[in-house]
């Protein structure tokens, strides 16, 4: 019985590895092409392994793409700050202080997440033309935050409404006001939720293409996604450099996967199914 069981899981591991290799092949291919010599790119069939690796592509990234990476980093961080500053207090007001009218507001947040970014980008464009906010990093941070704020409020609310009531009562007896309870009790306890919200806000801002390509396309500071897109448009021969940029643009994703995987899964699930 024991050996039979062991043999069965062994097969499952092999099968699982095969599935994973198939699934991650495009990611491997991105690496492979990023290391391929320019003259070998047109080779047919292409080499499955980077046998003659070159770092030309990566040199091009460091010569040309550093400003775009910096812009994306700034965008991501700005979006994280704005999202947390808006979402966390609001969730506290809704889930713990139980503001009246909280239910319709929750409903509005759910609906807000369904609005296509194309439509939002046109609205923002119309507004930014007048306010002269096109091609500005602040305008883009504001637009990018709209992807994360509703999610943030819902995630924080779901967590905060599960906090024990006794804790708030204890704080009250201790004489803490609403703001102090929020700052010194609720927020420290919500650290994991804050991390999840921050990670997603960062990732969405970093990955955004629609807002970047509509609101910031002629600026001096363009984010990395737009930079890759322009690169493809201008220079379709140097796919190694394009793929090297893509590899560098994937660093936040790799970071999340290695260091914050449980928050990622928590965030994906929280967006769809409430426990």
């Amino acid at each position: 019985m024991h050996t039979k069981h062991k043999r069965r899981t062994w097969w499952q591991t092999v099968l699982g590895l095969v599935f994973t290799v198939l699934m991650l092949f495009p990611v491997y291919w991105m690496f492979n092409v990023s290391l391929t010599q320019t003259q070998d790119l047109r080779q047919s069939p292409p080499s499955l392994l980077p046998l003659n690796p070159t770092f030309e592509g990566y040199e091009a990234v460091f010569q040309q793409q550093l400003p775009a990476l910096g812009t994306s980093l700034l965008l991501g961080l700005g979006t994280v700050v704005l999202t947390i500053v808006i979402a966390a207090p609001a969730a506290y007001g809704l889930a713990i202080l139980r503001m009246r009218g909280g239910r319709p507001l929750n409903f509005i947040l759910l609906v807000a997440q369904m609005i296509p970014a194309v439509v939002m980008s046109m609205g923002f464009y119309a507004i930014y033309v007048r306010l002269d906010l096109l091609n500005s990093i602040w305008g883009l941070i504001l637009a990018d935050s709209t992807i994360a704020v509703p999610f943030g409020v819902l995630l924080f609310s779901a967590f905060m409404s599960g906090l024990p009531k006794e804790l708030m009562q204890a704080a009250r007896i201790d004489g803490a006001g609403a703001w102090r309870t929020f700052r010194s009790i609720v927020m420290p306890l919500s650290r994991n939720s804050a991390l999840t919200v921050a990670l997603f806000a960062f990732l969405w801002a970093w990955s955004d293409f629609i807002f970047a390509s509509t609101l910031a396309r002629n600026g001096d500071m363009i984010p990395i996604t737009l930079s890759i897109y322009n690169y493809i448009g201008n220079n379709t021969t140097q796919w190694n450099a394009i793929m090297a940029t893509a590899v560098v643009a994937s660093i936040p994703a790799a970071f999340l996967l290695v260091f914050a995987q449980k928050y990622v899964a928590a965030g994906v699930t929280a967006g769809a199914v409430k426990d």
Partner: protein
Amino acid sequence: MTTTQDTSVANGAERQPRRRAAWRGSAKGSPFIAVGFVAPLIAYLIAFYAYPLYRSIDLSVHDYNIRAFVQGNAEFVGLENYVDVVTSDLFPTALWNTFVFVFLSLVFQYTIGLGLAVFFRNKFRLSGVLRALFLVPWLLPLIVSGSVWAWMLNGDYGIINSFLAVFGVDQINWLTDPDTAMTAVVIANIWLGIPFNLVILYSGLQNIPEDVYEASSLDGAGPWKTFTRITFPLLRPVSAITLLLGLVYTLKVVDIIWVMTTGGPANATTTLAIWSYREAFGTGQPDFSPAAAIGNLLIIIALIFGFFYLRMQKRMEDH
């Protein structure tokens, strides 16, 4: 530690009477304190959701060109833009493409995601690590995935064609042939959506009690029977939520199609979202009014399915 506690209690006793008044109200749901915390969100939603949406509706009922945009003196045309869009030759094509793109994406994402979720439910060596690796496509920026797939599907130098050539398949110009372009973007989009389906369906499976399975294996049910009689029916609410949410997300996809085909060739991959994006931002001459009209139609379609999703979710919470 003890001393700190003591002082805080002492402080508390001292302050209690003054603070209590403010707090008693909030326990009953004081309008003022709670609203103070929520007010920034409400202001934010009005300024950055309601107002842009209002502006996009405003665009769709006027005749805006780029000059009128800056000067703000566009002519009011009522529903004319909507009529133009719906009666245009491209409308049936875009609607059909949207349907094909969404339908095929969902069917395969869901089926593969469910298969993998069931597979990963068996705890085997490395299962946790491998399941985590399946998240990768979902975490990559869409532009990155789109450009990788575009190169893999390149007609002349792509790895996919080299692979198919081994089996004697002739060169397929995936992205430049109107007959295959839709298949190409759907393949990329399925790949992107598998992680989302896997994660949600897997968490749904975790909520099925273990003893249900034990009872079934005592009854001598094989794996297939267990799946059709137990797993699938018990997973139905989670499945519905996954599919509806996937639908709402897939309807608005722009990035992946745009970077791979820009809606071409010959509009073969022009969905409503792509059409709207292209009218507004994809050509040298922005045409915001029809673009906004298409976008608003898309919102209506998304919201119809969105409400089904919300009803479904509420029903699950009530149970």
